[in-house]
């Protein structure tokens, strides 16, 4: 089973720890390749590591999740991105789906591993 490399972007440290633990504990070949606490670091690390799937928080200071997603998709239209946010309004979901993003509310943390596995392209 090939490994799927993921990247976590969230400004809350607790969320990053939680996501990493949840993803790695699922033990389905998912690996956290990089973590970023803000949008700009995220873009830098993403270009460096080229993960298969990005887990992206929306509400962050400076660049928001949607800002980051837009830039990533401009450079790599095939990039798989999950918008993982506590604040999913109808407008936001519509905007995300137009761009081709998947959305998941933060209360559904346990579904992250499965979603990641489904999204990651064949290795």
């Amino acid at each position, binding site marked *: 089973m090939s490994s799927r490399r993921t990247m976590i972007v969230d400004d*809350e440290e*607790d*969320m990053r*720890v*939680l996501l990493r*633990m*949840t993803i790695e*504990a699922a033990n389905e070949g998912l690996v956290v390749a990089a973590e970023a606490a803000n949008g700009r670091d995220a873009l830098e690390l993403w270009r460096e590591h080229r993960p298969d799937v990005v887990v992206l928080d929306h*509400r962050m*200071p*400076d660049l928001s999740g949607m800002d980051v997603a837009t830039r990533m998709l401009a450079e790599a239209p095939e990039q798989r991105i999950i918008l993982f946010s*506590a*604040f999913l309004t109808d407008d936001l979901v519509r905007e995300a789906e137009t761009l081709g993003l998947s959305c998941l*509310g*933060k*209360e559904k*943390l*346990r579904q992250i591993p499965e979603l990641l596995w489904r999204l990651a392209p064949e290795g």
Partner: protein
Amino acid sequence: MEAGARGVSAPPRWLAAGAALAVAAVGALGALIARQESRDDDRRRERALAALAIDATRASLDAALEAAEGASIAPELGVGLPSPVGPQRIAAVLLVDQAGATAPVTRVAAGTAGRLQRGADLLAVPEAANALRASLERGAPAASAPLSAGADGAVLLVFPDYSGGPPAATIADRREALGGWTVAVLDPARVLGGDRWNDVGLTVSDAGVPVHEVGAQDGPVVARDHLDVLDRIWTLELRGGGGSGSDLAAIVLAVGLLAAAAVFVPLQSLVSRARAEGVAGARRARHLEHVAEGSGRLHQSLDLDEMLPTFATVAAEVVPLSHLAVQVEEDGALRTVFRTGPPPDHVPEPSPAPPPRLRAGEAVAIPLSRGWRTVGSVVVVAARDVGTDEVLSLRALLEVLAAALANAEVLRREKETARRLEEVDRLKDAFLGTVSHELRTSVTAVGGFTDLLVHQWDSLSDEARRDFAARVGRNALSLRSLVDQLLDFARLERGSLRVEPVEGDLAQMTTTATEQLSVLLPSHELVVRAERPVPVVADASVVERVLSNLLSNAAKYSPALTTVTVEVRAVDGQAELAVSDQGAGIPPAERTLVFNRFYRGDSDVTRATRGAGIGLAVVKELVDRSEGSVRVEQAEGGGARFVVVFPKPVTSGGAGQRERHEPA
């Protein structure tokens, strides 16, 4: 020889063929002329009497006014003569006491009717009482029924006085604001004697609206005069008896039939005088039309920018002006909002008694008022000499403009209020959005880490377990703080934050609270200086919430690894709690604004951090309810230092001006 009669010429055919008719006509004409002349005499007499009547009425009022000048009103009742006092004013001032049960006369000027002695209660005079009440209800001057028998008895003209302000919008409010009445006595019967009133009528009007009418009202106006009454112009009009139009027509025809020069001259002067009156009447009618139409156009828009150019056009149709400027009153000063035509060299001050006539080239400033309040002023320069009719029409238009200005002001204030409410709504939405997001994050963390602990306990290291448990604890505290904030917000909205102060030790309340709250500052060093007891009257949970908010702010707005200091001490007989940080501080201009609900400063630091701006508003509310105060100053080293002051117990011998609160 001209036939001055309109439309009828004297062709020679008539002269020749009508000679026989002429003889007969002379006889008829002679009779007509004789009758006309005696009627003419009557009219002349009436006019003289009318002038006399008006003069006499005015004289009695003038005499009253002169007596009024310089005198003062009973100071204990706190009402003075409406200003400005001048020779053209009426004076018989009556005051109603605050309960409104009596209306005693407090001053009577010479020349007024004998019944109005000082101390007399006007509400006991039924005619007066009705007029007083009518004027109060309408918020406008009113006239009483005649005080003595007959239609020509003395009449009271009543002006309500609203303590210098405008009449309020409802009857109840007007009753509340009423300071008293100014009453004028009108007594024309003394001059003319009772039997003249069969043929003659008197009308007293205020800005064109009749206030009182006596006698026959169907004759033409034969004399008119104006009175300045409390900054308003009152018009007194005397009307003569019976029309003479049909007789005139007969005369005109007779002139056409005959060609007698000796008869002609006096007849022609009659005819041209009739025409002049007709012309004057037509001109007055045209002016009234202009005013009516103009006021309709002026009322179409509440927006001054749209309405003022229309006003200039309408005014110019009534009175040719070479300059017009409109000023509105704003915060006690006059601001020019519209100007057309070359301005005069010298702009005069608004005169309280505007002139009855305008001279060409002369600049006049006319004040605009609603009730007793000035809403603006209009400066005009007439392009030619302007007579009283036209000035009256212009003044009627100015009344309309004053109303429009007052309406525009109301509209402007309502729009401002709506804008501010929209702003608060927007900020409130942002606050709720932030708080709900942070709530969900904390809930997810608590659930997520607990889950990991439960399901992965065995495979986790000791260190990891401790770490996760601590995270659960921190997020639980965060949850509690967020819930407290939401509840505080709800209570702030409804005005029901409850505070129960008791006597205690502020130092101890502080150390207890900071032990719990230190987890809010994981990346900062927290120093607490609260060794000696500090007596205070405060609610311990208020102290805890205040500290919680101030410490969260300090954590957010100062860099990691810096120190946050909490100090408790007794200062100047008060109990003081201070929280200082080493961040960027708060600029002096914002030091009062930060305590406003939803206020967030404008620095880069503020924009980068998250927060809803409610914390300090809650602090202020809680502290206010505790009979204390809060302020922010600059800390040593440039950061922010929030200082909260609580009251000391009275018995402890400090400044102790505040009352003790008994424990609940």
